[in-house]
């Protein structure tokens, strides 16, 4: 029985983490490479990273539906395709997009790794405040959708820290006088992510908000078996989005990004596992404890 709250090192954990880092790096390099090609290749048209963002699909959806096929400027059919893929992915596997694919999530993981290497203290947010702040994602999502519909353009694009960072405008077309606000927002978010793991994802990301809402329907979930779990809380420590896994409902929160860290560190066989189960929102699930087959 584990009596310490220290994470357990295991070969499986290292392998899973390596796989995740490689996957994140692959998608990150694709986006960075696309941006570089967009700036440097002039002999052919190279798409900007705007075309590769599933959130662009959410932002343009209303215009596309209401006009019968028109897009908000800078968005294209690819955004809708990626949105469909994202929705399918979330219904199948919850927030795996955030944990394994999103380059901005990967960048925040990198900043967290740097913080640990520099032995900087983590800024811990009290649980109650943390819960309140997570609603910030829905506020951001609502404001952006409203403003995009009202202005018929990617209203948030000029300040979007993901776009500011990965479009590489700061590298190829640095313009402090016009872009200072975008740079400032990105800088604040990145400094925040250096001190608070996954700061943007946990409190502000509009796409994360949408994924979290839809994640209640996901078929694959990490579930905690109350009978096996001794609530040692070892699983809480490595969670990048600070879910209280040890006290979680049978199905771990829809905010889960599927990084599998908690499953890997759990010292008790079967206490935490990935399961395929009915996709029921929390309020519709029976209150009794579920067994894991």
């Amino acid at each position, binding site marked *: 029985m584990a009596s310490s709250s220290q994470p357990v090192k295991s070969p499986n954990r290292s392998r*899973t983490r390596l796989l995740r880092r490689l996957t994140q790096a692959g998608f990150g390099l694709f986006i960075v490479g696309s941006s570089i090609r967009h700036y440097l290749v002039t002999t052919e048209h190279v798409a900007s990273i705007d075309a590769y963002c599933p959130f662009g699909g959410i932002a343009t959806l209303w215009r596309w539906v209401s006009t019968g096929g028109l897009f908000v400027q800078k968005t294209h*059919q690819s955004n809708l*395709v990626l949105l469909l893929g994202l929705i399918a992915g979330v219904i199948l*596997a919850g927030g795996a*997009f955030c944990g394994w694919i999103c380059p901005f999530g990967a960048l925040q993981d990198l900043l967290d790794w740097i913080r640990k290497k520099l032995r900087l203290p983590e800024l811990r947010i009290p649980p109650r405040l943390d819960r309140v702040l997570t609603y910030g994602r829905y506020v951001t999502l609502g404001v952006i959708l409203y403003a995009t519909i009202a202005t018929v353009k990617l209203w948030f694009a000029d300040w979007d820290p993901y776009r500011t960072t990965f479009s590489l405008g700061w590298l190829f077309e640095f313009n402090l006088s016009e872009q200072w606000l975008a740079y400032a927002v990105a800088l604040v978010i990145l400094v925040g992510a250096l001190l608070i793991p996954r700061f943007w994802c946990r409190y502000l990301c509009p796409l994360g908000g949408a994924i979290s809402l839809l994640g209640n329907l996901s078929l694959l979930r990490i579930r905690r078996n109350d009978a096996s779990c001794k609530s040692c809380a070892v699983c809480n420590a490595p969670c990048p989005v600070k879910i209280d896994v040890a006290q979680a409902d049978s199905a771990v929160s829809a905010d889960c990004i*599927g990084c*599998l860290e908690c499953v890997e560190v759990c010292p008790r066989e079967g206490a935490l596992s*990935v399961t395929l*189960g009915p996709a029921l929102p929390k309020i519709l699930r029976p209150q009794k404890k579920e067994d894991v*087959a």
Partner: protein
Amino acid sequence: MKAIRVNKYLVPVFGVLALLGSVWVAKAAGAWQVSGRGVILVDESGEADPEGIKGWMTLSDVSSVYGVPLDALYTMIGAGPEIPPDTALKDLEKLVPGTEVWAVREGVEAYQGGSWMPDYGRYTGEAIKEPAPPAPTPTPEPAPSAEEHVPLGTGAGSGEGGGEGFTLPQDGSRLPGSEIKGRMTLQEVVDYCQVPLETLIAELGLPDDIDTQLWMRDLANQYGIEVTTVRDLVERYQAEH
């Protein structure tokens, strides 16, 4: 229903495959489009809308999509056959000074609306050759000439079109922000759209002493502010007031 324990790696595998699979399927179906190139904007009647004319389009594209004969298009932009039909509109400015995408857009709109004909010569925005009937509202103003820039007439212009490509609402209400054209001056935007000059100056970051007779298209040249930006701003203002 009991949950079934499965391999943990199904989480990333399904997440990644769903995303990449959607891309593969879209590519196979020919639905993977990462730019606006090749996309033609159509209006409610299904006709190609001149608002969708983009800098990547060639003269030949514009001619075939919008039904403007190539000769007429050359007259419209004040160029001759020395400009190849496969010249992109965004490159026209270098070859034919003063020809910008917005001018082609408005010219095509005027051609389709019948307010500009090749006989009129190069499209300058002052397309109406026949006098419009007397305006129902205030002060009649002289018809604009090709040589000088004068404020737009306020007449409803039932004749051959709407003069500068827009028609003031006959009920005296304000001009919608979406109708702002490159040939309108800042003062005309203030007057016709009923938006305070101070708001425009503040929101667009213009100097306080800006010349209010400056054309919208010149805002782009001098201050990097596109007409679409002014349209968006005025539409927002009008929606709020």
